[in-house]
Every structure is written in structure tokens, then in C-alpha cells.
């Protein structure tokens, strides 16, 4: 009997002693045991994969090295945002591809947002035809794979547009539009570009050398927008204090456009028009077929998704909000701008982030129309020519991951600023 009593005593005593079996039978430790066990299995699996890869590479007599990035690329790239020729390295070619990816992603995001907001608002329109037209747009574009849209726009550009030779001769069968400044050909669209007569040269930052003039343009525009914001905030303060809103429109115009126009005049900015020279148009800016096909394909396709997001965001706002605004005497336009849209943004932004990410990732379809993005340079020709599949693919995946995380990080910061403040 006494032994039983003793046992009971030991049980009651906390942390009297620790047995290995407690890891499995004691509720306090069991979940940790299981987690440690599975973590161990996971690490074993990963180690096996890595070991297998390393061994197989060694069996093939190949090492794991990124040295190929320093070897001469040997191939040319048509769209070069920075200086590049075939004698530069594979790393430089990958950088050109990365910049091309970013250019396309930004262009397509802007187009998709503009189209999406317009179509989303118009789909709620009381005008039956406009509403149905937008429904057709949304349903047609989002229900057909984006690759097909890209190929269709690419085919339209190459098959339906005139060749540069059609612009030649005394009675050309094709002519430039907008007062001889824009040429639409089957090799892309040529538009005028802005040239500075007194250019300020280039700024060497690491591997890239952006133009100082254009950097200043961006700075001046940003400063103008910031100053204009201050002006409007000041006007609101005056209105709150006195009830009278001071006139700001001419000051706004002056702040926004004055400095930039002055800057352009100072540097002697003028337009360079494209003209027929040799086989092709030369001068101006060349928007290649591949860029246009990708831009329109991605932009219009994703725009259909954004339209639905915008519509959902607007519909999510209680009708009472609109009615209350009307009761206060706000006009429909102001109601939308001041009451509905700011609240709708909270609903719109999270899914919008995911669509921006989709656009960025979908730029990797560029190979289909020969757009020289990261996938076509680093992930295509470089891998083909050097045989470094593993390294190239891993590097490319890391870069895409970094781009996507950056985009969602930045937009999440914006989201936390506009979302409902709860205290």
C-alpha cells in the first residue's frame, strides 16, 4: 500500500524528474517532439536533394559556379535601355534583360490600371449600352489565356501593318500619321523622341549610366507635384479657418508646368522625328512589335481583372454612404471622389497588388514574341550558350522573387496608409 501512496506523491510533484518517454506521452512536450521530428525529416530531405545535385554535377564533371556571368555574351539584344554589345558579359546581358522586364512591367501596370478603373466604373453605369460593352470586354479578355492575346497582338502587328518599304517612293502606299511624326510599321511603331541640344551628360552609377538631364526632369516634376500638394493643403486650411477657399488653379498650373518648361527651354529640347533611312526608319524612339504585343496583351488582359476588382470595391460601399453624401448636398461626381472611392480603395488595393505581381511574372512570356526580357536573355540564350541551366535558373528565380517581394512590400506600405484606421 505504501508504495502506491509514494507513487501518487511523485506524480503530484511537478518536474520531479524527466523521462525520455515524456517526450511522447506528456502533452506538454508531445507537439514539440513531433515538430522537431518533422523538421529533422525536412532537413534530411533537403540535404539529400542538395547532395544528390552536387554528386550528379560532379559525376558529369561540372562544378557549381557563377563565373559564366563574367564571360563575353556573344549575342546581340535589340532593345537596349543601357549600353550593350555582344562583347559585354552575360551578367550585363542579364541586366539589360532585367531592365526590359521592368520597363514592360511598369508600362503594362499603368495601362491595366487605367483601363481597369475606367471599365470598372463604366460597368456600373446606368447607360445600358456602356454597361454591357464593358461586360463584354471583361468577359472576353479575362476568359482567354493571356499568351493567346499576346500572340494575337503580335500577329496583328506583323501581318496587318505596312512594311517600311511601303513608305518609300513618290506614291507610297502607306504614310506616317500625326503630321509625319509617327510611323506604324510591321517592325514596330516609330515615335518622335525628345533630344536636348545642351545635354548634361551621363551619371555613372555602378553598371548603369542614366542621363543627368532626364534625372533632373524627374526631380523637377516630383518637386512640382510635392509643392502643389502643399499649396492645396494650405488652401484647405484657409478654407477651414475662414470658410472661403482661395483660388489655386493658376498657381497650381504655374508650379506644375512652369519649372519643367523653363528647364526644357534652357537645355534646348526639341523633337527628333523618325525618318526612312536604309532598310528601316531611323531616329526617334522605336517601340518594337514584341514590346507592343506584350504591352497590349498584358495590359488589356489584366485590365479586365482590375475592372472587376474596382467594381467590387465600389459595390462594397454601403449605399447609405452615397445617400448621406447626397443629403449633405454633394454632387454625384464629388460623392464618388470624396466619399465612395476613398473607402473603396481599402477593398481594391490588396487584390490590386496581386494583379501587379501577376503582370510582372507574366512578362516572362516575352519569349513567345521574342521580347528580350530576363527570361529570354539570362534564362534563354545565356543558358543555351553556356549550358549553366541550374545556376541560370536559380539566379533568375531569385531575381523574380526579389522583384515581386519589393512590389508587394511597397504596395503593402501604401495599403496600410489608406486602410481603415482602427484604434
Amino acid at each position, binding site marked *: 500500500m505504501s508504495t502506491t501512496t509514494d507513487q501518487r506523491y511523485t506524480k503530484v510533484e511537478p518536474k520531479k524528474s524527466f523521462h525520455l518517454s515524456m517526450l511522447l506521452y506528456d502533452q506538454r512536450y508531445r507537439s514539440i517532439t513531433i515538430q522537431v521530428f518533422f523538421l529533422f525529416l525536412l532537413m534530411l530531405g533537403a540535404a539529400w536533394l542538395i547532395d544528390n545535385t552536387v554528386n550528379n554535377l560532379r559525376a*558529369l564533371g561540372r562544378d557549381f559556379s557563377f563565373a559564366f556571368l563574367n564571360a563575353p555574351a556573344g549575342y*546581340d539584344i*535589340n532593345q537596349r535601355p543601357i549600353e550593350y554589345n*555582344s562583347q559585354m558579359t552575360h551578367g550585363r546581358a542579364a541586366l539589360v534583360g532585367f531592365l526590359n522586364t521592368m520597363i514592360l512591367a511598369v508600362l503594362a501596370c499603368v495601362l491595366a490600371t487605367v483601363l481597369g478603373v475606367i471599365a470598372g466604373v463604366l460597368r456600373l453605369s446606368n447607360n445600358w449600352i456602356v454597361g454591357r460593352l464593358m461586360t463584354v470586354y471583361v468577359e472576353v479578355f479575362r476568359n482567354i489565356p493571356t499568351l493567346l492575346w499576346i500572340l494575337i497582338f503580335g500577329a496583328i502587328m506583323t501581318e496587318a501593318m505596312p512594311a517600311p518599304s511601303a513608305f518609300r517612293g513618290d506614291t507610297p502606299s502607306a504614310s506616317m500619321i500625326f503630321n509625319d511624326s509617327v510611323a506604324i510599321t*510591321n*517592325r514596330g511603331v516609330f515615335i518622335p523622341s525628345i533630344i536636348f541640344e545642351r545635354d548634361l551628360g551621363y551619371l555613372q552609377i555602378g553598371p548603369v549610366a542614366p542621363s543627368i538631364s532626364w534625372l533632373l526632369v524627374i526631380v523637377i516634376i516630383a518637386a512640382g507635384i510635392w509643392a502643389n500638394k502643399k499649396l492645396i493643403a494650405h488652401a484647405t486650411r484657409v478654407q477651414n479657418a475662414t470658410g472661403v477657399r482661395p483660388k489655386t488653379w493658376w498657381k497650381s498650373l504655374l508650379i506644375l508646368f512652369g519649372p519643367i518648361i523653363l528647364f526644357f527651354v534652357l537645355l534646348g529640347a526639341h523633337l527628333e522625328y523618325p525618318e526612312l533611312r536604309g532598310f528601316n526608319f531611323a531616329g526617334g524612339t522605336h517601340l518594337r512589335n514584341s514590346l507592343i504585343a506584350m504591352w497590349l496583351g498584358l495590359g488589356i488582359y489584366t485590365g479586365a481583372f482590375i475592372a472587376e476588382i474596382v467594381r467590387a470595391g465600389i459595390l462594397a460601399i454601403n449605399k447609405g454612404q452615397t445617400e448621406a453624401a447626397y443629403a449633405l448636398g454633394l454632387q454625384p461626381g464629388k460623392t464618388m471622389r470624396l466619399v465612395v472611392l476613398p473607402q473603396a480603395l481599402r477593398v481594391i488595393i490588396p487584390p490590386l497588388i496581386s494583379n501587379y505581381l501577376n503582370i510582372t511574372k507574366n512578362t516572362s512570356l516575352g519569349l513567345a514574341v521574342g521580347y528580350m526580357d530576363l527570361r529570354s536573355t539570362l534564362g534563354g540564350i545565356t543558358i543555351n*550558350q553556356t*549550358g549553366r541551366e541550374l545556376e541560370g535558373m536559380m539566379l533568375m528565380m531569385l531575381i523574380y522573387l526579389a522583384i515581386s517581394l519589393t512590389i508587394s512590400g511597397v504596395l503593402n506600405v501604401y495599403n496600410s496608409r489608406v486602410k481603415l484606421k482602427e484604434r
Partner: protein
Amino acid sequence: MKKSVFVGAFAATALVAGMAQAQTLESIQDRGELNCGVSTGLAGFSAPDANGVWQGFDVAVCRAVAAAVLDDAMAVNFVPTTGQTRFSALASGEVDMLARNTTWTFTRDIDLNLTFVGVNYYDGQGFMVNRDLGVSSATELDGATVCIQTGTTTELNLADFFRSNGMEYEPVPIETNAEAQQQYLAGACDVYTTDVSGLAATRASFESPDAHVILPEVISKEPLGPVVRDGDKQWEGIVRWTLFALIAAEELGITSANVAEMAQGTDMPEVNRLLGTEGEFGAMLGLDSDWAVRAISAAGNYGEIFAANIGDQTPIGLARGLNALWTQGGLQYAMPFR
């Protein structure tokens, strides 16, 4: 021409396949059929005709080997392979030999453990332009838009050519030959560049081939030839010497018309050795003494095969050029049958 992406996948299968397949000849004779890897369809080189029978310059090599080994030129199972699948098909044993436009390069020979048995077509990269363009030389192509298959050695040759001539160009990278053809015909590029034989074959399939010219410049060396796996000397010998037999037959004046007659014995010792009336060459290959007679009667000698499939009188219209016999200023040269 093309460089395989799948070096890794290929080499893995090569390791497995390697030694296990030393007895290729026996397995073909047991099977009663030769598995021959060809391209997916290039007019004149390997493409099925209206009756579904494979015809062409590369196909004829397969038929000659089948005739030598199996006594039946039609006992060939043609396996269409793409630029990316060809080497793994050979390494895995899916095909016994490759007879498709494959360039003999260092890395393929050494790194991929393949054996190029010879060269049946000496090719090089060239340019095709529309006749209306009025261009007669590739050095006049400054500023041109060039359609090119991406990921091929042609891309590197092109960059080198334009750079060394101090010219600018606009590359339009394209994934497949069919797409490139469509872009070129739509006028989205001024120039299409690939191997000259490929240009000629592509041009022959155009609606109006005469409207396009192939420029005289050839900017690279592309020796194309049949390929076998490493590790089976006997099979390698059979394919190599069947190819040499076809070339030697042209050198020695043996044609499909007179081969039966000459096989009765002549006063030329090399002809006798080739056709098996003198010496034991067939036995050394593991075949009978008539092997070369059958190979030559399958589709004729090298010159006959060339003329019938891709020569002057065909729609492809290629001149012999580098592929003339060495005695006529070309490079085709059979090692001696001795």
C-alpha cells in the same frame, strides 16, 4: 547548328545507356528494323512524301545502312527528333543512329559522348533576302532587320559577322523555323539567316521561291553528318564505312545502274575490295561480303543521292560546291578501302 539545352538530362541517360548497348548490330538484326533519328521535316533532307514514305538526302543514308545490315532498304523506322530531343533519343537507345542536320562540334563529340562518323553535307550559315530589296552581298546589309532562331550557334555567328564588318543590325529573335518563315514572309524582317541548305529547303517551300535570293556569303562552318553512340566500335564502323562506300562509289564510278554488273568482278582492285569480290571486308564488319553492293543499290552513290534529293534539278536546287568530290574541287573524300 543548334546547341542542345538538355546537356544535363542527356548525360544522365548516357551514363545509364553507355556500355549496356554494345551489341547494336545484333539487336537491329533481331528486331529486323533500323531505328533512324531524322529531323521533324526539312524538304529534301528528310520529309515524308505524299504517300507517307520518308524521302531525302539524310533519309538515304539510313536506307543505305539498313540495306547493308538487313538486306532491305525499306526496313527503317524513322523517328522524327527536334534539335533538343535528338541527342537524348540516341543516348537512350530509342534510335540506333541519327541522320539529321547535326553540326559536328567539339563539345558534342567530346562532352556529349557521341561519335560523328563522317560528314555527309558540308554546310555554312547564310542569308536569304527578298529579291526586291536589290541586295547582292551580305556586306550591304547595314541597318537590316534579321530574323534568327534564338539559342542557336547561328546567333553567335551573326553577331560576330556584323561586328567584324562594322555594321549595325536589328535582331528579331524567334523560337522556331516555322515562325521565322512566317515573320520573314510577312516582311517583319529583311533577312532570314540559318544554314544555307536550310535556307534553300525553306525557300523551296515558298509560294514563289524565285522572289528570294540566298546571298553568296557563307559566314560559318557547319559540317553535318550521321551520329552514333560512343561505346560500340562495330556499329560505329558499319555506319562510317557505309557512308564512305557511298562516296567511294562515286569516286570509282559505281552507280546504282552498274553496281550489279561490277559486282561480278572488275580489273580495278579497289572496286573489287569494296564490292566484296576480293578480300573479307564484309566479315570484318560482321556482315556478309555483299554489304556495300546493297548499300549502293539502295539509292545509288553519293552523287546520285545528292542529285535526286537536293541537286540542281530539284526544287531545292543546291549546287555541289563544297560537297563535290575532292577530285572535282570539293571536300567529299572517302578513306581508302584497303
